[in-house]
């Protein structure tokens, strides 16, 4: 199975091309309920996490809430 190169929260990574958004979150130990995911500046609907696979060159951002004023 071939791999694709993605940018995941600013870090370049090579991952399996069948990797889904949910796979990425689970691998990183992120609680999906507490985060939002953007791929190439578009917010990914939560219902797509398990089905949407990463593509070559995808820029993926996972954000959460932190303390702020």
């Amino acid at each position, binding site marked *: 199975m071939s791999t694709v190169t993605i940018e995941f929260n600013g870090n370049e990574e090579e991952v399996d091309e069948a990797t889904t958004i949910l796979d990425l979150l689970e691998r990183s130990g992120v609680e999906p309920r507490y985060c*939002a995911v953007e791929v190439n500046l578009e917010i990914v609907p939560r219902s797509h996490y398990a089905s949407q696979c990463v593509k070559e060159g995808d820029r993926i951002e996972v954000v*959460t809430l932190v303390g*702020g*004023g």
Partner: protein
Amino acid sequence: MTTADIIQAQAGSIADSPLSVAGKTLASRLILGTGKYDTNELMRDSLAASGSDCVTVAVRREKLYDRQGKNLLDFIDLKKYTLLPNTAGCFNALDAVRVARLGREILRSLENPGADWVKLEVLGDTKTLLPDPIATLEACKRLVDDGFQVLCYTSDCPIMAVRLKDAGAASVMPAGSPIGSGQGILNPNNLRIILEYLKSDDPGYPVIVDAGVGTASDVAQAFELGADGVLLNTAIAHARNPVGMATAVRHAAIAGRHAFLSGRIPKRLYATASSPEEGLITSRPW
């Protein structure tokens, strides 16, 4: 008199309606930030001591490689607090809209009532953290069009405040002084003008003083001037005793609000005696 009126009268208190923003009623007139606390436990206890039921949060990249396990949200009771996500750290309108949408996405999954709220701040530079008025107005318009309830951080400029209200901001939030500076309310006259302009034909329109609070008396002053709410973070988080300061601020909010509702006396140049002029047994030297 209703039962509530009687209870209030017995407590020596006065009738007041709660703070209402964008159709939502808050129990407290204080909105607290959640940043800069030494520990999450200290933050949780300070929020509780303040009596606030609305807190701001920031949207940031998830730390994927040095996670320490706990999330801020593990320390905030989502049934008690309305979360108000901010756009802190944004220096242009596009970034602010992007961050606001991400915050909304997270809050929707949490089913928090603050999901369509955003504390909009678009800053001009990192040294003053003063708002960029042009970018703020542009971002405000875009977010209102996108269905957001925009609580908009701005300077204490009355004209800008009017422009933001006209653009559809759910609340205009003028700074007392620069963010985190602790200088208090530097220009109370501008705040007076903002309150007059925004409320003249719309008395329920919420004006919230955001930024610059240094201690409890600054909070009291904001309410005495007629502000509907105060948003603060550093004054509590960086106090020597944050829980103690949160308690002081809670009392200051009540004191200031009651003073405003009770109507202060006008300032006079000369004295007016409190004891009667009649029946004096003393003589005067003139």
